């Protein structure tokens, strides 16, 4: 069974990959088989996890409000009235339930996660006012002394490369902590950089929001802002495209690795055998179709 499973897995993998070449019988078989399996799997999942767990077992149980689960069943049955054209309008009640439910759920949830929290994160002072308190100055002093102490510590004799890397990391961390503390107690380069970041984010958010204005004509200052907004959007699109490549290539590499695994003799060299057979068949089809085309042409 295990070897047969390996052959099936390899075959289906290669069937799906064959789509890269062009639409062909292998892909069509794979595609239809895939759809069949997923629906079957979905039916089973819903049967056990929804019907048995959430309806049947509840009805069989003792809970005094157990019959309430019949309400969604009835709503579901309303949907099925679509099979009977005369009363198919009843399905709208079910639509209304699903759509109304989704709308009501979305409003407060979207507001909190996407508006209020995000707004809170954006509304920062654009220019940091240094904390002139004694405590802040003291914290900076302390961090500075610590950074100097860590940096001055001599390397122990016979230090391994790893230990050295760790020690150097410690020096960097201490220095960063000092710079960070200083950026809060006085206006340093780091403070300026942080403010710059805040301002860029601020301008970005504003200009992109301007781009989305629908009922204001985009001319004059609105046009300028919305143009800047487009530039920000482009940076976003480019950056997140580039950032996704890694993940997608890892997946591809994973598939290749699997195919390589299944090439081993313990699986009957599944990958090379199936690959050769498929290529041979596709080549045969190609030649046959070419012959047909030439016949047509003649």
């Amino acid at each position, binding site marked *: 069974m295990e070897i047969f499973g390996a052959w099936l897995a390899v075959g289906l993998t290669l069937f799906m990959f064959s789509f890269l070449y062009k639409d062909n019988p292998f892909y069509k078989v794979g595609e239809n088989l895939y759809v069949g399996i997923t629906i079957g799997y979905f039916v089973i999942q819903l049967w056990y996890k929804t019907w048995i767990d959430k309806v049947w077992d509840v009805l069989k149980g003792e809970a005094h409000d157990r019959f309430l689960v019949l309400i969604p069943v009835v709503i579901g049955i309303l949907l099925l009235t679509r099979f009977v054209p005369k009363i198919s309008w009843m399905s709208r009640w079910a639509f209304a339930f699903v759509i109304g439910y989704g709308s009501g759920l979305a409003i407060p949830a979207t507001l909190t996660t996407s508006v209020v929290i995000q707004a809170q994160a954006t509304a920062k002072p654009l220019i940091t006012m240094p904390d002139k308190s004694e405590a802040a100055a003291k914290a900076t002093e302390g961090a500075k002394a610590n950074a100097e102490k860590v940096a001055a510590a001599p390397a122990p004799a016979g230090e391994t490369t*790893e230990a050295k890397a760790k020690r150097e990391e410690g020096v960097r961390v201490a220095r960063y902590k000092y710079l960070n503390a200083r950026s809060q107690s006085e206006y340093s380069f780091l403070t300026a950089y942080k403010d710059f970041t805040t301002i860029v984010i601020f301008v970005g958010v504003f200009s992109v929001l301007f781009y989305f204005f629908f009922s204001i004509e985009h001319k004059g200052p609105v046009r300028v802002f919305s143009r800047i907004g487009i530039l920000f959007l482009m940076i976003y699109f480019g950056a997140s495209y580039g950032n996704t490549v890694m993940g997608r290539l*890892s997946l591809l590499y994973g598939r*290749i*690795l699997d195919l390589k695994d299944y090439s081993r003799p313990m699986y009957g060299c599944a990958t090379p055998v199936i690959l050769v057979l498929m290529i041979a068949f596709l080549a045969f089809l190609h030649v046959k179709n070419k012959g047909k085309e030439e016949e047509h042409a003649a």
Partner: protein
Amino acid sequence: MEPFFKKLLAMDRRWIFLALGLAVIFPTFIHLNLPGLKPSPNVTAVYDLIEGMPEGSKVLVSFDFDPASKPELAPQGVAVLRHLFRKKHKVVAMGLWVTGVTMAKDIVTRSAKESNAKYGEDYVYLGWKPGNFAVIENMAGDIHGCFPKDNDGNETASLPLMKGIHKLAEFDLVVSLAAGSPGIDTWIAYGSDKYHFKMTGGTTAVNVGSMAQYVQAGQMVGLIGAMRGAAEYELLIDKRADAAAGMDAISLGHYLIVIFVLLGNIAYFVTRPRKGGA
């Protein structure tokens, strides 16, 4: 040059597919060992932990992932097992995800065979039992009761290695390679927090962020993150394998895309109709 560039612009996209396919397959056969990889502190911590244990320590490795996360987690498993077998530790393997049973068995048997580890004496594969966290709780009380038979149907009590292990707390270390829950979080909550064994593990790129908190809180030692972490581990045990090859393949893929984009732009500028030109 112009005709070449015109052809390039109108190129069938299947040539790109072919080039990319080759770029990703090539490093799996011939290791390029591209430079630039450096072991991160979290991965080094896992390595140091295993390296520092006395020979013959008892280690439980739990494969808590399914084939979807195989590219990231299987190389971690192989690298860790290689290290464990090399240090002559005793390995008990299992899994909390039913969908990963066969895959985990394959990983364990292959690594063992390569290191000449003997089944029953140097390592055991227990397989999977239903119950998520309950499995861990049962194992805490009585491993033989929880797994009366191993994955191949042998009596657990008859295996020499298992004769010396009855309770979870008797392990010196538990390694969970997890793609989510149940996984590292479950092992910590129901295992190491209560029974105080050492805990380490590895996870996928998307989970690194949420698992790193356990390292910071000291609930586990080190963490191997995604394929990159596995490649770093391979570097540490000085045995570059699938993950290192993977990093090379992925890097090559990136370069190839960048080169194609640059070529496309050169071609675009060379071939575009010039304004006011002759």
